[in-house]
């Protein structure tokens, strides 16, 4: 006798909702009954972040979907733009965790109001209307902040700078990178345990520091740092990912910033 035939579809959906998105998708291939149970809103509503409706309501373009599963696929296959196009949001397809890319307009960048230092321009590879291009500064200071409450709880995250370099770059071979919880650690404390990243160098072999990696979207990324986002109950305030190069009389130029990305690892 087939023991499962007796289980109502709602109960099968209930069971599948305690697994993972990958398990649910594989369940759809088991049989017709399982397919119908695995596609139910009961299942996919649990895999979507609890605040997904609020997030989707901030989308620049309307998000159209037929079911919760459809919405999950939509949000994990391509990012949506939120908040007048300054913030990009998507889901990690394997676990439904929240990912954000803060656009350059959403970052705090020193001297970004001075066009001889920084310029906001268009770039065809960008998902945002504008990116920031570094013409020339002595003090390179880029920070991206996000509330820990809008990230997924009980999750290990990493922050990345998403960028490109122009051919005529300079002074990008030794930048300090750090992530801090703004309420818990001062800037000075965070600088003490900062690591070094090499945004660009012509002879990286002689240098010590983390190197960037190529992404599939035409940009480079370098990890700024990692952090653990704990229970949603203990409010950790904002988390800040920052890059700093304050070596004086040392011009920096040729960096194009798409944004700062927070995603689970």
């Amino acid at each position, binding site marked *: 006798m087939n023991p499962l035939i007796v289980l109502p579809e709602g109960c099968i959906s209930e069971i599948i909702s*305690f697994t993972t998105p990958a398990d649910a*998708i594989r369940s759809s291939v088991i049989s017709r009954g399982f397919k119908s149970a695995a596609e139910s809103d009961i299942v996919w509503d649990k895999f979507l972040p609890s605040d997904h409706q609020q997030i989707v309501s901030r989308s620049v373009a309307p998000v159209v979907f037929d079911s919760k599963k459809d919405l999950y696929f939509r949000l994990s296959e391509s990012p949506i733009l939120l908040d007048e196009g300054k913030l990009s949001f998507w889901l990690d397809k394997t676990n439904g965790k929240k990912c954000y890319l803060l656009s350059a307009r959403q970052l705090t960048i020193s001297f970004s109001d001075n066009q001889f230092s920084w310029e906001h321009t268009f770039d065809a590879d960008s998902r945002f209307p504008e990116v920031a291009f570094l013409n020339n500064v002595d003090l390179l200071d880029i920070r991206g902040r996000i509330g820990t409450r809008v990230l997924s709880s009980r999750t290990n995250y990493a922050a990345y700078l998403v960028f490109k370099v122009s051919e005529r770059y300079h002074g990008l071979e030794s930048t300090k990178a750090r992530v801090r919880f703004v309420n818990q650690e001062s800037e000075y404390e965070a600088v003490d345990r900062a690591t070094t990243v090499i945004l660009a160098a012509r002879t990286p072999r002689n240098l010590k520091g983390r190197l960037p990696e190529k992404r599939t979207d035409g940009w480079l990324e370098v990890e700024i740092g990692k952090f653990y986002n704990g229970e949603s109950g203990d409010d950790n305030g904002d988390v800040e990912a920052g890059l700093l190069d304050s070596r004086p009389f040392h011009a920096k130029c040729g960096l194009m910033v798409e944004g700062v990305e927070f995603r689970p690892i």
Partner: protein
Amino acid sequence: MVKLKSNDDKEFEVEEAAVIQSEMIKNMIEDGCATSVIPLPNIDSKTLIKVIEYLNKHINMGKAAETGEEDDLKEFDEQFVNMGWEELFDVIMAANYLNIHELMELCCQSAADRLKNKSVRAVREMLKITNDLTEEEEQEIINDAPWAFEGPEIDDTVN
């Protein structure tokens, strides 16, 4: 005391404090529909005994947290779901019918843990399910999310 009757005509007496963990019975009592014996036409005596065992153990859940008996309760839960598929599904159906939220969650979690990372073939074999999808239908699902069918974590063993 409340009297419950299984579909094989066996009667069980349960303390009201235990039985009202079932939303369905709680509503019946509140509506005054539970004067004599409550018949449960969907539940056999074997399953009902399991459910009553659970209800009695969880009767003082709130107290357990105060007196540090949480570990004891956790151990009970672990032992409780240590049963075969058929028995587990019977308890799930009973919990669903009686609307006992915590029991439903416990059993569904246990079933989910057993299915986690299992290959399609393994689940079909474990639960003795015959595939009634066409090859095209199957392929369509796989093409939509090939990543869910790849990876070293996928477990093809049946146990």
